[in-house]
Each structure stands twice: as structure tokens, then as C-alpha cells.
């Protein structure tokens, strides 16, 4: 089975939705046309747009292919600026058929390129998936495309992955204690996004609402939803893959103060007298809604 390594994180949000939907179909068409008895090497594809081209072209790994989604004028300008760097172009209103053709074209060109060499240059925000994985929806695509083991707040490229890791296994792993974000990391989303599949529930929307209205740490997020911490981490992973998550690392602790000061109470611990304080509007509304649901036959 031939493989396709996809890097679409450099694609701006305006193009990501269309691409995520059409790619799923196009990749299936493309795979169906592959001769099953012929084992082809993997193809690494970077999907970019005019806005992200400078950064993506600079950072892409050697030997990878670049697909530019842009108007003809933008593509002409990009080709003038980076000769021989753009392998294919699609207009912003491309169809599934056009995308499938591009995949076939690149697949032919990819003959002879080695997967492991390209994987070595995989960067933190890239999205990697084997196209032979059955994808149920766009969220699943992003989930599989995002490696949970990546550091939470990193600006530098990842260290090289283990050389013998097969691409087909480069899917998300369940959240584990070792993969938790740094304590105190705060999360926010840049825009609302429609979650689908198992993440289409009200609790998940509450989670998004909490993050769109402010920077929240994991404790606050858990407090504002009915979700388990592992599920929150899973959602964060999807949002990270979609490129809508903003993560703010906690300020570095001052060692002298940290050594001299006893362990501070947990951020969410009740303050003295809080028990006698009036509930905030959030609590009041939440409680009323909960009570109303309990008594509502709907």
C-alpha cells in the first residue's frame, strides 16, 4: 500500500474546511486507483496558500511536494518568487476531481523518494496521516493527524522521530499522564468550530464556549463542563490540529521564591468565606438549567 503524508497545518483557516472535506474523498478515489500489487514509496505533500507560502516553503522538508491553493495571479507571483518550489496549484474553488488529479500527478512524481528522509523533517504543527485510514469525519482526520505526544507549547521543530516508526501507525494515542500539558497552561480558541461525531455534544460545546470567552486552565475547563479530563485533552488535541487552539504557557517560576514559599493552595480551592458568598451568575444559570432539565420531560 502506498502512503501519503499530509502537511496541511500551513493552510489558512479559510481553506482548511474545504480541504479537509474534499481530501477525504479525493484520497479514497486516489487510493482506489492505485494498483494494489505495486508498492510505491510514500509521498509527502505540503498544502499551502498564498498567505502561508513563505513560511511553508522555507520549512518544508527536502523532497516533499508543495500544493498551492490560490488564484492564478497569486500562483504566478508565488512561482516568480520561488521558482521550482511549487509542484501543483489549485484554484480556491477546486473540485474533488481536480484534487484527485493532483494527488495522482504527485504520486507519479513521488516515485523513488524515501519516506524516512522526509519524516525526519516533520515539524511540530504538521499534520500526518496515512490515507489508507478510514476517516469518519473531519474531526477524526484532524485527530489522527495530530500527535498527542507533541509538546504543548513549542516554537522549535520537534526532535527527529524514531527512524523505524511506520507512517501507518502515526495516529493519535490516548491521553496519558506523561502527555499532559504543563501545569498552569491556559487554553483559548481563536474562533468557534463545529465539532462532529462523538464531540458534537452539549458538554463539548460548553468546553468550546469556556475557551472562546477567555484563557482557561484544565481545572477551569473541567469545572465548567461535565467532561472527564482525558476527554478534554482529546478535544484540545483536535482543536490543536484544526489550528484554532491558542496555548499560553504559565510564567516561569522564580526559583528563590519557590524554594522559600510553602506550596500554594490549589487555584480552585475555596477561599475563606467563599461558602457564604453569593454564587456567580454562571453558577446560578448552570444550576437553574440543570434543575430545569431534570424536571423537563423533553
Amino acid at each position, binding site marked *: 500500500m502506498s502512503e501519503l503524508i499530509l502537511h496541511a497545518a500551513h493552510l489558512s*483557516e*479559510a481553506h482548511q*474546511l474545504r480541504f479537509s*472535506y474534499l481530501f477525504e474523498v479525493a484520497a479514497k478515489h486516489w487510493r482506489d486507483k492505485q494498483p494494489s500489487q505495486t508498492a510505491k514509496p510514500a509521498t509527502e505533500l505540503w498544502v499551502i496558500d498564498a498567505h502561508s507560502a513563505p513560511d511553508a516553503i522555507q520549512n518544508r522538508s527536502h523532497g516533499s511536494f508543495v500544493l498551492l491553493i490560490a488564484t492564478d495571479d497569486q500562483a504566478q507571483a508565488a512561482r516568480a518568487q520561488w521558482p521550482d518550489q511549487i509542484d501543483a496549484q489549485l484554484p480556491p474553488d477546486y473540485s474533488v476531481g481536480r484534487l484527485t488529479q493532483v494527488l495522482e500527478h504527485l504520486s507519479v512524481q513521488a516515485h523513488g523518494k524515501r519516506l524516512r528522509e522526509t519524516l525526519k523533517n516533520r515539524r511540530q504543527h504538521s499534520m500526518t496521516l496515512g490515507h489508507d485510514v478510514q476517516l469518519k469525519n473531519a474531526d477524526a482526520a484532524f485527530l489522527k493527524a495530530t500527535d498527542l505526544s507533541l509538546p504543548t507549547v513549542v516554537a522549535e521543530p520537534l526532535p527527529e522521530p524514531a527512524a523505524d516508526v511506520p507512517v501507518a501507525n502515526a495516529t493519535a494515542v490516548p491521553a496519558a499522564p506523561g502527555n499532559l500539558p504543563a501545569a498552569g497552561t491556559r487554553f483559548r480558541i*481563536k*474562533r*468557534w*468550530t*463545529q465539532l*462532529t461525531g462523538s464531540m458534537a455534544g*452539549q458538554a463539548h*460545546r*460548553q*468546553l*468550546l*464556549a*469556556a475557551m*472562546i*470567552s*477567555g484563557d482557561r486552565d484544565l481545572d477551569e475547563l473541567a469545572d*465548567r*463542563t461535565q467532561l472527564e479530563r482525558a476527554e478534554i485533552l482529546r478535544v484540545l488535541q483536535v482543536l490543536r490540529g484544526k489550528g484554532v487552539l491558542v496555548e499560553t504557557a504559565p510564567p516561569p517560576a522564580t526559583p528563590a521564591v519557590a524554594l522559600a514559599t510553602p506550596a500554594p493552595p490549589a487555584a480552585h480551592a475555596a*477561599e475563606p468565606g*467563599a461558602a*457564604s*458568598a*453569593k*454564587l*456567580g*451568575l*454562571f*453558577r*446560578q*444559570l*448552570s*444550576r*437553574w*438549567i440543570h434543575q*430545569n*432539565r431534570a424536571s*423537563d420531560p*423533553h
Partner: protein
Amino acid sequence: MHHPIKRIVLLGPMGIGKTTAIRSLCGSLAIECDVPNLDKQAHAKETTTVGLDFGEIKLDDEDTLQVYGCPGQERYDFVREWALSLAFGAIVMVDIHDPQAMEQTINLIQQCHAAPNIQAIVVLIARPASAAQQEMFTVRLSAHAECVVPVLSADPRNPSQMLDTLDIIAAMLPDEVQPR
């Protein structure tokens, strides 16, 4: 002790379902201000709201949440401005199949931001739309700096779905603790 009255407002074009949504949320504690609709060119429905629709939700023994539905016609924008000035939350209802939907929604969100006390704004897609259509609308709306808000989908006739919408507003609020 003084308890400031808490209010949210429902905004949106004529006929989108603001009156219905208040009825769904507040049940018998709703007062409607509908009169025969004389502007059948704008919308074919038989009645429309003048003044403000109004409903109440008893949060507890002391506090009440008031829900206002603003008339959708542009000529009543002064009513909308007044209601927004009193509210902490706004639900902007929209039919994303309407060619004017994006422009109307952006305009209403900007009006919400101009209000002094608004802490939570939610866009409510009040007509059936596919997930892809909703996401596309969300992405386009979010391209405007002031419009980074939740975009939900609910049937105004469905109390449970309207509760979900209110729940999202609750999730956006600061969890302030007020001293007695």
C-alpha cells in the same frame, strides 16, 4: 440587599423566531407584544413584535433572569440599543440561508459590543443547516475580529435546545463571587 436585574436579549431579523424562543425558555412567564404584521413584503407572517417581548426565569428565590426579544425591523433599532444597554448576554438569531445573513449578523454583533455590559454573545442558527454550511458560516464570521463567538444551532420551538443555548451563555460568563 440590592440585586441587579440580569437580562439577556434575543436579536435577529423579523420572523426568525425570537418570540417563539422566549416562549420556549420562559413558558407561562412570557409576555408577547405581537400585533398584526402590516409589512408583508418584509415577511409573510401574520403577526410581528412591537416593543419588546419579555419573559422571566426564576434563578432562585432572590434572582430572576429576564429575557427580552427585540423587534427585528431596522426602524426599531433604538429599542434594540436600549435593551442591549441593560443586558449582560445576547443571542443573535440567524437564518444562514438568507443572503443577508452574514451582514446582518456582523452588524448585530457589533451593536452588542457597543453595549456597555454585554459579557456573552452567541449566534444561533435558527433554521436547519448542514454541518458543513454551519462551519462555513462560522469560518466566514470569525474572519471579522469582533465576531469570534459561539455559533450554535437550535430550533426556537424546542425548549431543550434553547436551554442548551442558554447553557452556552452560562459557560462563557465569568464565575464571579459577589460578597454578601
